[in-house]
């Protein structure tokens, strides 16, 4: 009788540490979070009182929560409109550059070595209404001064703006690699057949890097919907709660208000929401294929 399953021990051995760390540091905390969400959690005598879905109903009825959800999706829309397409355009342009290509790629990568928080702090100084560089430059052309982080109308934009200039390093490389993987003969043949730059872009280049765009979009979506550090450093969620996003509310509910059960329930909600969005996006992509 032949064995139906052959175990390749060596690959399994290599995989073991990552599987173990995933189970320990990802799945266990996730399941624990779901468990906590059903309790009026006591951190001193866990788990506290079982309250069923009460934590969920509490935050779902909370205007503060929905304000944070609204802020989160406004940020998502702003990041999408202002930053997501930038590395695609940069990669397309870079693929046309023959001379000094490596230099440009290096220069695009350079900002990515700067820690996110350090970059945000630099921008925070630039936004300072009294001695910030941005208002100084704008004053030279008769504009401003603007209260970048104080004005309820523009604070969100001010938080997103830095990503427009220095947030595309790795994405750009991925897009660039995908573009370079398109066989040159095909592009040359299209050129010979009279396809102009726009036609080649829409019918050949973008479809060929579509897979990378989808991957990047999924990562982008989860990254933006769970954004925390850059917003926290810039505004701590203020002014007047105008930049408080759900991940920030999760942390403050747990660690400032000591309501760990509700905080866990919010986290589960966010997880389910992002998972659903990912699934929907996946289905739409498959349907289009």
């Amino acid at each position: 009788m032949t064995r139906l399953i052959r175990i390749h021990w060596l690959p399994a051995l290599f995989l073991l540490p990552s599987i173990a760390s995933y189970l320990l540091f990802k799945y266990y905390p996730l399941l624990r979070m779901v468990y906590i969400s059903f309790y009026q959690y006591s951190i001193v005598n866990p788990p506290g009182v079982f309250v069923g879905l009460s934590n969920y109903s509490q935050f779902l009825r909370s205007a503060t929560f929905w304000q944070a959800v609204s802020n989160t999706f406004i940020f998502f829309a702003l990041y999408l409109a202002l930053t997501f397409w930038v590395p695609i355009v940069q990669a397309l342009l870079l693929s046309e550059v023959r001379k000094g290509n490596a230099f440009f790629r290096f220069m695009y990568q350079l900002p990515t070595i700067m820690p996110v928080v350090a970059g945000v702090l630099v921008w925070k100084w630039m936004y300072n209404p009294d001695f910030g560089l941005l208002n100084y430059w704008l004053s030279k052309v008769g504009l401003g001064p603007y209260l970048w982080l104080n004005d309820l109308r523009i604070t969100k934009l001010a938080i997103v703006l830095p990503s427009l200039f220095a947030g595309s390093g790795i994405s750009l490389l991925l897009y660039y690699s995908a573009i370079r993987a398109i066989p040159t003969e095909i592009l040359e043949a299209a050129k010979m057949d009279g396809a102009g730059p726009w036609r080649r872009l829409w019918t050949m280049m973008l479809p060929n890097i579509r897979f990378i765009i989808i991957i990047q979009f999924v990562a982008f979506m989860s990254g933006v919907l769970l954004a925390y550090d850059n917003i926290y450093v810039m505004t701590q969620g203020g002014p007047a709660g105008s930049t408080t996003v759900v991940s920030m509310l999760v942390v403050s509910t747990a660690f400032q208000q000591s309501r760990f059960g509700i905080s866990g329930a919010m986290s589960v909600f966010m997880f389910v929401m992002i998972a659903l969005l990912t699934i929907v996006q996946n289905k739409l992509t498959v349907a289009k294929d």
Partner: protein
Amino acid sequence: MNPTSKMSAASSLLILSLVVTACGGGNNEAQSSVSPSASPSASPSAADSSSESPAAVVEIVAWDKPAADSADKAFVEQRQAAFAEQYPNIKVTHVQQTSGKEREQFMTAVAGGEQPDVVTVAYPDMETYVAQGIPADITDLWNASSDKDNFLPSSLNAATIGGKIYGIPKDMYVTGLLYNKKLFAEAGLNPAEALKDWDSFGAAAQQLTNDAKNQYGYAILGMDWADWFFEYYVWQAGGDLTEQQSDGTVKLTFTSDAAVQALQYYKDLKWKYKVTQKNVVQNIDDNQKDFYTGHAASTPGGADWIGNFASKGMSLDDIGFSALPAGPSGTSPSQVGGSYWILNPKADKEKQQAAFTYAMFLSSKETIEANYQYAKDNGIFPNPLTVRKDVEVSQYVDGLPDDLLKSIQDATKETHLEYFLKSRLSAYVVPAVQKVLLSENADPKTELQKAQDLAQTEVADPYNAEIKK
């Protein structure tokens, strides 16, 4: 599974990890070190005659390691070494907390079953921590201590809940209005008249505001701690933001006349008098910096800030301290704050006794006097308030301006604790304050009503239901 599905699955895992990360808070990056080895020659008299070194070695963890740039690092380490010498059988591991992240770090440790045996906690946190059972009930330990009567009764107020004692007083401060005497003199202002009431202060602050010199009258606190100083104005108007009822429940009074008047005055300072900094939500450190660099002519603050200002180069002769201008009620209570040592309720009796002994040692007459002497020797402006009755602060303040000391002492005559349930309600009061500071059209009453409605359903109702269970 097609490639896209694989990526979706991978992304979902990423999302999981991020959600979990967001839920987990900051890491404890604390460093620890074992205290110096003990010497058997010491006597156990400094802290408390009832505290003796245990027969067997007891190891405790204290979150009290000073930061590398702390002004009193040498002093704290010297006292820790003195304790190790005096109590050879109590081994203390000192752990440093991350500045500005102390609360999150502590709650993470508690949630992870790693609560330190002894740690300091600020006054406003006591009520919520006690409600969750975080600090140990030390009533028996306290009552057994022969040193207990040497502490000011008022120093125990915020640690006494339901007749039980949960904290050992560590330090106290009193707040008021810090003002730059030099700028007041240049503007021809007499501080006593200028700081008399809200109207006189508004007019004086206008005289102190000069855009050409990048100087303004009043550093307003509009960041996410905005309720801290705003509550003083509510007191000045004769009210408070909350009331604790006799059954322990909370009643919100955000929309009381006093609170509305206070917020209207805040609004006036910004939009009518135009005497605040442009960036009204700037960090409190920036407010302080504006003050000691001479950009801000006044700021609310603690008397214990004066030492920091002096260390940054501001002359003590230029620093004035006063009660805040009186509001419509004609009064101007100062806020008393401070911190307590709390013990871990899950630690065994030996550890609790050892932690109590350690905390009492650090709040002992000997330690507090040594602290004042250290400040005097090193030119550090001392905290004029102490938790003990048997320490004579005046012995350690030679050469300091008499009027400054007198005004600080005067500020302690009428004091107030912060509003009840602040740690949970702060997130609701602050946006209302920020709205009127950021928008000229915002109506104080409307914003406070919105804040109260939200806080009622999201905090007060659930809290009161918990209390009534």
